[in-house]
């Protein structure tokens, strides 16, 4: 009897291992099943295109994008020796330098003044965040009119003050700045909304204890608000930075990359090269450059973020 039980039990132990293995397999398949739709779509529309873009960047292609001749790194040396692409990179960097600090500083100011507990503050908050709901196409139409050389309000305003009108979108000196101004306006809504959220999550007791200590408004702003907001600010900087590098719509609507390629930002350059000039190889090489830039920003964000940002 005793032996029998022992025997049965040892048999049972062997069984457990099998059953456990089967259960583990089962839960693995279940997990994969839940993730499958995402995995498939990521593979088709993200990972494959990434690999394919790298592949294409080593080839010359025909008009429909079929690779014909392997040219090694020629596409890369070509784009880097091309004054147009150099111009494009330079414009892109300038554009980023104009729009990122611009949008963040203005939004920060708006968020700080909209964070006060005042009657009717909700209306102001809604107005400040409204540009988030305005599409690039519509916003571009709005600004196109403002920039209009004769009818536009900006030039009319200048005339009232007695200044000459500016060719906002046609003067190579002004075009990039004009596009930047309209872009800042488009970005304000989103950055404002995120920054306001960050401000509202700061514990009010911090301010209360500062009040008891008799701290002034700007002292509190400098010593409590900005430091406590730093994780949010950091996130907003990264997102607007990445967005700035991906700008396309307003260029297509407002300037088509002109005048004199002054506003030919990198994504517009890729678009033109691939879908206007049918140079898929060089366009892919440019896309790789764009990818690398964003990769670096993301990695820097992660590295710095680990140190700075408080993840929960």
């Amino acid at each position: 009897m005793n032996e029998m039980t022992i025997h049965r039990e040892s048999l049972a132990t062997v069984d457990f291992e099998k059953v456990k293995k089967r259960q583990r397999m089962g839960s693995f398949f279940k997990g994969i099943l839940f993730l499958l739709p995402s995995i498939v779509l990521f593979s088709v529309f993200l990972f494959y295109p990434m690999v394919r873009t790298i592949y294409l960047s080593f080839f010359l292609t025909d008009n429909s994008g079929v690779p014909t001749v392997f040219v090694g790194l020629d596409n890369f040396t070509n784009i880097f020796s091309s004054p147009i692409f150099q111009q494009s990179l330079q414009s892109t960097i300038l554009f980023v330098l104009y729009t990122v600090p611009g949008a963040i500083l203005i939004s920060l100011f708006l968020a700080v003044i909209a964070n006060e507990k005042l009657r009717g503050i909700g209306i102001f908050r809604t107005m400040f965040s409204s540009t988030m709901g305005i599409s690039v196409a519509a916003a571009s139409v709005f600004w196109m009119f403002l920039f209009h050389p004769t009818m536009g309000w900006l030039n009319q305003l200048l005339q009232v003050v007695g200044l000459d009108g500016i060719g906002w979108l046609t003067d190579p000196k002004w075009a990039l700045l004009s596009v930047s101004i309209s872009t800042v306006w488009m970005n304000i809504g989103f950055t404002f909304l995120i920054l306001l959220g960050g401000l509202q999550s700061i514990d009010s007791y911090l301010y209360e204890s500062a009040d008891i200590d008799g701290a002034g408004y700007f002292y509190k702003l400098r010593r409590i608000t900005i430091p406590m907001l730093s994780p949010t600010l950091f996130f907003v900087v990264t997102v607007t930075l990445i967005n700035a590098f991906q700008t396309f719509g307003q260029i297509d609507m407002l300037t088509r990359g002109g005048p004199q390629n002054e506003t030919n930002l990198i994504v517009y350059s890729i678009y033109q090269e691939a879908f206007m000039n049918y140079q898929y190889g060089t366009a892919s090489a440019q896309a790789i450059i764009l990818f690398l830039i964003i990769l670096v920003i993301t990695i820097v964000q992660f590295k710095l973020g680990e140190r700075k940002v408080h993840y929960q």
Partner: protein
Amino acid sequence: MTMPLHQKVIFYLLLSISAILIFAPAIIAFLMSFMPSQDILTGKIIPTSLTLDNYVQVFDRSPLFNYLINSFVVSVVIMLGQLVLASLAAYAFVFLNFKGRDALFFIFIATMMVPFEASIIPNFQTIRDMGWIDSYTGLSIPFFAMAFGTFLLRQNFKQIPKELKEASEIAGIGDFRFYLTVVLPVAKTSLVTLGVYGFLTSWNMYLWPLLATTNDSVRTVQIGLRQLQSQEQLNEWGVIMAGAIIVVLPTLILLFLGQNKLQKGLAEGALK
């Protein structure tokens, strides 16, 4: 703490000036959409009369109504697709325990580093080779899988007590049923947030619809607006503005309704 009066006045002043500046481009466009073209051409700032002509014109001259329908269909399909895929994936990351889960999660994170703009060339070719140019499918499916949405929902699902799952396990409720009958209803708010976000971004999408449509059959409003702007004579600003106002109206309304939720949701998905 109540604010002294002079401080209050300063704040209201700052708020009002900022609001006027921020809102000016939209207000001007709104005013212009009701102005007769004579007024616009002569550079009037205050209209002499208001008219709905521009709105009638814009629907007459362009298939704006079709564009609206197309945008609506595409945005709703993308929104639903994202909700389904993101919630399924988030469920797996929160409630299922299996080998390789962490590695897969890392892959999901990695997808955030690949900008869509950098991979449009092969994507365009894929869609073209599949014959999905000028189709709702081609406009929507590439955007179904979404790392950001998965993170946002994962964050939210993690707040569901794991005891609910365990109680269900004891009662013999399977994973799919638990996902459907417990997780989705409990996380309703964050699903709505993500839905609003998905709809907004899809409605405002520009580059992809520009590439993936060649005619008016499935063209979305944003590209419709581009057509309108490039086709119209420069003196038809009122009509263009009317079109632009119609294009932004749905998203603005959605934004005003969901502003609070969106603000909280975006911050959550982003920072945690």
